[in-house]
């Protein structure tokens, strides 16, 4: 009797494992990984999605040849476009190892959240993927393979990561963008990718600058990489390295003597917000930089007078540059510095009384960049 019961119990447990088992597994070997993807808008207003699919063959010693396939498909929504891609390929499309997402210019001119919704809704999607804007269609960026790195996803990711390191673009992934996207007091900027050369043969993917967004939309304006670095400094957001080359004089010969290249050691940026009784807003943005000279052929840094003059001229030209950036941002109506955020926090009544989108371009923003040269290089 007991033996029989025991037998039944074991049979039951066995059945449990062998019948129910593994129903929700998703096997890695059956997945078709998507390492980078791009979204475009067709002329008829449909979504066109492009993905890069890596293929590797096994060889005797580990990994063999790699190849990348670029596939596009249309659909009314990104999800539908993705389903249509899935129809064209063997295996199940899986975006959980997505490295880079590129948005075509046309898509970004509309609100971008609807296009990105698919990433935020699926728990398996990779929220640490990097987001970038293409100067033209995203498909062109993804289809451009360089001879050395066949994987366009790796190429783009490394490109963006190194730009983060040199403070050209802020360190942000899809998740970070999401939290700023619906913040009324702050706007974001995305790296702008460009093929650079009109001649398609010699062109190569590069970072053209920072695309300025207002709300969820791309304004068409962008900061150059040099302006990008200065903006990160003003935003107290220095990457591992911030390096700038500046022209400090006009009349020296040869031309190279007119320039200095500096590395920023420390940055301290302060935002002073003044709100008058009639809700007039003035912002004083002071950025203190300590820098070291890493290239200055003219030298003469041992001369105290020359040294002070250099500090002054650097401060002056950086302040001018900063003014240009602020002007650009205000024209594009992009509050990338998060001034609105401060007003919400410290002057809430003012915030309630104002229509920020209309007020922001009108407010006064005074910038001041103070440069202090602290290291001259090892020999001098």
């Amino acid at each position, binding site marked *: 009797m*007991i*033996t029989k*019961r*025991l037998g039944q119990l074991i049979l039951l447990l066995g059945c449990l*494992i062998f019948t*129910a*088992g*593994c129903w*929700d*597994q*998703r*096997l*890695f*070997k059956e*997945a078709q*990984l998507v*390492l980078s993807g791009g979204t475009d808008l067709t002329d008829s207003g449909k979504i066109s999605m492009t993905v890069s699919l*890596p293929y*590797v*063959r*096994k060889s*005797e010693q*580990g*990994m*063999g040849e*790699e190849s990348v396939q670029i596939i596009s498909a249309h659909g009314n929504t990104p999800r539908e476009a993705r389903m249509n891609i899935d129809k064209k390929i063997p295996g199940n499309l899986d975006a*959980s*190892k997505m*490295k880079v997402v590129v948005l075509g210019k046309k898509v970004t001119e509309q609100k971008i959240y609807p296009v990105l919704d698919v990433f935020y809704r699926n728990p*398996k999607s*990779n929220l640490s993927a990097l987001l970038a804007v293409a100067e033209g269609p995203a498909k062109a960026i993804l289809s451009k393979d360089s001879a050395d790195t066949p994987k366009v996803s790796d190429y783009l*990711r490394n490109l963006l990561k190194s730009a983060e390191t040199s403070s050209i673009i802020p360190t942000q992934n899809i998740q970070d963008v999401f939290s700023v996207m619906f913040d009324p007091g702050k706007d974001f900027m995305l790296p702008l990718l460009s093929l650079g050369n009109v001649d398609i043969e010699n062109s190569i993917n590069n970072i053209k600058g920072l695309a300025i967004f207002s709300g969820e939309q791309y304004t068409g304006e962008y900061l150059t990489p040099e302006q990008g670095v200065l903006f990160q400094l003003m935003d107290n957001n220095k990457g591992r390295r911030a390096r700038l080359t500046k022209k400090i004089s006009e009349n020296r010969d040869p031309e190279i003597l007119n320039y200095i290249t500096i590395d920023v050691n420390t940055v301290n940026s302060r935002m002073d917000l003044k709100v008058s009784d009639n809700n007039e807003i003035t912002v004083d943005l002071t950025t203190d930089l300590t820098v070291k000279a890493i290239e200055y052929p003219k030298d003469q840094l041992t001369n105290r007078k020359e040294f002070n003059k250099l500090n002054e001229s650097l401060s002056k030209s950086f302040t001018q540059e900063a003014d240009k950036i602020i002007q650009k941002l205000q024209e594009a109506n992009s509050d990338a510095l998060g001034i609105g955020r401060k007003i919400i926090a410290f002057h809430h009544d003012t915030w309630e009384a104002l229509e920020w989108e209309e007020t922001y371009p009108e407010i006064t923003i005074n910038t001041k960049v103070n440069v202090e040269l602290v290291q001259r290089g090892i020999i001098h």
Partner: protein
Amino acid sequence: MKLLKKFLGKKEDNNYMKDYRNLEDTKQISSKLDDNLSYIQQKLNHPSDLQKMYLKDGKALLVYLETLSDQDKVNEKVILPLSKMDNNQIQIKNMESTGKQHTDLHEGIKQLLKGHALLFIKGTPELYTFNATAIHNRSVDEPANEKVVRGSHEGFVENIIININLIRKRIESTDLAVRYYKVGERSNTNVGVLFMQSLADPEVVKKLDERLKWITSDTIISPGYVEEFIEDTPSSPFPQMLNTERPDGVMSDLMEGRVAVMVEGSPTALILPVTLMAFYQTPDDYNGRWIAGSYLRMIRLLSFFLAVTLPAFYTAIIAFHFEFIPNDLVLPIKASIDDIAYPPILEALVMVITIELIREAGVRLPTPVGQTIGIVGGLIIGDAVVRAGLISNVMIVIIATTAIASFVVPSNEMSTTVRILIYPMILSAALLGFVGITFASMIILIHLCKLESFGTPYFSPWAPLKWNELKDTFIRVPVWKMNQRPSDTQVEELNRQRESRGWKKT
């Protein structure tokens, strides 16, 4: 559990061995020599190795078992002294090594079975026993399965007397209690129980005494038998007693208030009660300095987690959560598993079982053949199986690491336990991914918390958590910091030293 107990239920029948307990009563010694001889021969089923010798013109009879007794000792102790005596006057009391006098023939037979020689004198109802036991022992070599780099290289042997001698030499104390038990109703095996009277918990000693007396088996072949008869939870995969062949290990355990059980004929001592941690400590930890000891201890504990969870972890990742794979490893791993025909669980199980086959084949074979099996199994199968596309090479790496990690455990019993635990872990990982691993680990942890060894918590000092006893777990703090014994044994005297480094550095 009750179901299982009923299923395996014990049959009550104590009569089946009555005939063989026939030395319990007493038997008068006959004054006729031949009567005694024939009685002995009958009792011992007419053994061919029974040597009988009439001495002194048939006035004395010497009986001994030639296979048990040493011929030289018999000569020296009995025959030579007797030959010097007058035939009519046999004075046993005048001999150099006086024999013990007995009046019970059954007692004499018991002594005979120990290798003593029996001497009967015509006309007297008594016998004399002379200790002439032959001793054939191997030397107290270091046990091959518990080698240490530094420290004592002595090991127990198959003779319980020598084993206890090794302990007594280490603990010169009146406090060391030694108790003999006769276990095995037919084999009459000597079982020794050792403990420190003032340290060991009397409750444990009492429990052990009771359980040993309960053993009704007719043979005790090894401590493994005793272990199974007296352990608390037979259905647990975890060993609840520590097996060791090292006298220094036994000594330190005795000093922590634990009890050692030794069995005649086996070089293994059972230590009880023990905690899980005991299986991960080796004398090497204490022979070296504390930093090295702590480092090795951490490596060993890491190996425990690796051995139990690594294949399960990998299976869960490639079957459920491949977003865990680092970016740069995605494509290499993908390349290696893309063309594998079987699901990850089969891959893992096949490889684990293959390793077990190689191990099991190698254990009992002579060394040259064993090595060949290792090479054929490990290298050739490992390589060919990847080329054939049956198993991915990442899986080979995982399983090989696991196998090595499982052999890091100093105790063979615990190593087997760890290797058995791999299976439920892999199975649950393949069923439910990380959730499955979590469930399986939880069940194992719950079981560990619940498990007891002779009434002491097995998972101590983690559960119940005792902060100041963790100093001999993940790390091994300097000896002079360990002023107290672990309290899991309910030790009678907790302090084992005062300040030992009170001196001033000058």
